[in-house]
C-alpha cells in the first residue's frame, strides 16, 4: 500500500479531500478503497454546478463486483469533475491520490475540513477495520 500523502484529510468511509492553494477542495477515494473494490470499470462523477452536502452521495464507483456510492467529505458546489475517468476509470486504481481524483468542490464551510480524519487517524480506522 502506498504511503498516504500528509496533506489529505479523510472520511471513515474512505474518501479523501485535499485543500488546494486557491481554496478549492479536490476529492477522491483512498488507496485502501480502490484496492478493496478491485478493478474499476466505470466512474460516475457529479455534474459541474451541482450543490453537494457533506455526507451526501456525490459519485459512484463501479468495479466488476460492486457499485458503491462516494460521499462528499465537505459541502459546496462542484466546480470540476475528472472527465478522464470516463474512458480511463482505472486511473483510480493506479493513482488514487493523483490522476484518479473524482471532482473538485468550492467549499461552503471551510470548518468542515477540520472535522475530517488526519492520515494518522484514518490509518488507525483501517487498522481497526482489519481486526
Amino acid at each position, binding site marked *: 500500500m502506498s504511503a498516504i500523502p500528509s496533506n489529505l484529510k479523510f472520511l471513515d468511509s474512505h474518501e479523501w479531500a485535499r485543500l488546494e492553494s486557491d481554496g478549492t477542495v479536490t476529492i477522491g477515494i483512498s488507496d485502501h478503497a480502490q484496492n478493496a473494490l478491485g478493478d474499476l*470499470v466505470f466512474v*460516475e462523477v457529479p*455534474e459541474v454546478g451541482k450543490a453537494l452536502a457533506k455526507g451526501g452521495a456525490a459519485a459512484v464507483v*463501479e*468495479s466488476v*463486483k460492486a*457499485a458503491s*456510492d462516494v460521499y462528499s467529505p465537505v459541502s459546496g458546489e462542484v466546480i470540476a469533475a475528472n472527465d478522464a475517468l470516463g474512458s480511463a476509470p482505472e486511473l483510480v486504481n493506479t493513482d488514487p491520490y493523483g490522476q484518479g481524483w473524482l471532482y473538485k468542490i468550492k467549499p461552503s464551510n471551510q470548518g468542515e475540513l477540520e472535522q475530517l480524519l488526519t492520515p494518522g487517524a484514518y490509518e488507525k480506522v483501517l487498522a481497526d477495520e482489519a481486526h
Partner: protein
Amino acid sequence: MPFIPHTEADVAEMLAAIGASSIDALFDEIPAALRIQSLAGIPDALTEMQVGRLMQSRAQRDGRPLNFIGAGAYEHHIPAAVWAIVSRGEFYSAYTPYQAEASQGTLQLLYEYQTMMASLTGMQVSNASLYDGASALAEACLMAVRAHRKSKSARILVPAAVNPIYLEVARAIAEGQNLKFDIVPFAMGEGEPGKGTTQPSSLEQYRGQDITAVVVQQPNFFGLLEDVDAITDWAHANNALAIAVVNPLSLAILKPPGEWGAKGVDIAVGDGQPLGVPMSSGGPYFGFMTTRMEHVRQMPGRIIGRTLDLDGKPGFTLTLQAREQHIRRSKATSNICTNQGLLVTAATIHMSLLGSTGLENVAAASQQQTRKLVEALTRIKGVKLAFSGPRFHEAVLQLDRNVAGVIEALAKRNVIGGFDLTPRYPELGNALLVCATEMRTDEDIATYAAALTQVMAEAMS
C-alpha cells in the same frame, strides 16, 4: 439430497433449535384479529384430475370464436417447432439460472435474442427482456429520468394515442416515484391532416419547459402511423429524451426507432408477444427494451455479454451486473425488472425460424388482411372508418349505435368483434378497434362482415 425442502422431522428439529412450539407460533406477533382464517370465494383444493376436467369444460365454453381484437396482443401463426424446442428440459425455465455461466446454452440464446432485438429496433444494446410491454414503458420512463441528469422535472409527455393500458401501468409504477405524465391529445378535427395521430404542433405548448422525455408509439393505439421523425426531433430539439413504444413485428416493414428523426430515439420498448407467444388470456407475455450505449448503465434488467475465458475461448457471461438489485439493492436500476426467459426463448426461436423475410411476410399479410377487413366492414350501413391515415394492422370504426351491444351480438355469432374504445375514448363516439392478422383468411373476413351486417340490420336498441 432429496428434492424435498423440509420434512416434518426437519421442521420439528428447526423449531426445537429456536425454541418455538409450532410454525404458527412464529406469527404470534401478528394480532389474531388481523389474521384471515379463511379466504372467501376460494374453493377447496382439487386433485390434478379434477382441475384438468374443470379447465377442459371452461375451455369448451369459450369455443373457438373468430378473433378480431388486437389492442396490444396479436394472434399470429407460431410454427410448431417453436414450442417443441422451448419445451426441451434444457430451456424450460422462466429465469436465468443461478450460477448463470454454467448454463452457456441459455446465455448464448439470450445473447442471440439481444442481438436480434437490437437489430430489429436499430439500437445499440438490448437487455434480456422485461416483464411485459406495459411495465417496459414504465421502466423506460424511470430510466429516462436517471439518464437525463440535466432535466430535473421528471415530466414525461405521453400521447393519448399510446396504449391506454400501458399508460395506466406506467402511472401505477412511476407516479409513486415522483414522475409526472402530461397527456398530449391526438388530432380530432374533421378533415384535419393526421386525424387520430399526435401532431408535433400539439407539443408546442411545452416548448421551453423542462421535459425529461417524450413518448411516441408506432403504430399508435389506433393502428395509425405517427410522424415519428418529427416527434423524435422535437424531443431532442427541446432537450428531452425520446422513448419509442413499438410493435416488434411492424419493424419488419417500418423504419426502426434507431433511425427516427436525425438522431434516433434514446430508448425503445414494447411487448414481444407478436414474436411467437400465444395469446393466453392476457399473458404471460414479455417486454423488450433497447437503448444507446451511452445510456446502458441506466438500463434495467440483465444483459448477457460475449467474452473470452482464461484459455481464450469464446463464452457468454452476465455483464454490468453491478446495476442490478442483487448487488446494488435499493439503488439498483430497477427492483421490478423480472425477465421472461421462457418467452424470450420462444421469441428467439420464432425469429430465427422466420428470418427477416418471414417476419416481413407476416407483417405485410397482416396489413393486407386488415385493409380487406376495413373495406368489407365499412360497406355496411351504419359503419364508417374513423381515421383514414396510413396504418399498420388495426383500424378504428365508428358505429351508429352502442359498441358494447354490437360486440355482444357478434359474440353470439361466434365472432369476437374488436376492442370497445368507448370507455377510454368517449370523444370518439361509438368507436370499435378492429384488427386482422395473417391468421384471418378472406373467408373469416366475409364471416365477420356477414355477422355485422345482420347485427346492424336489427333495430337500434
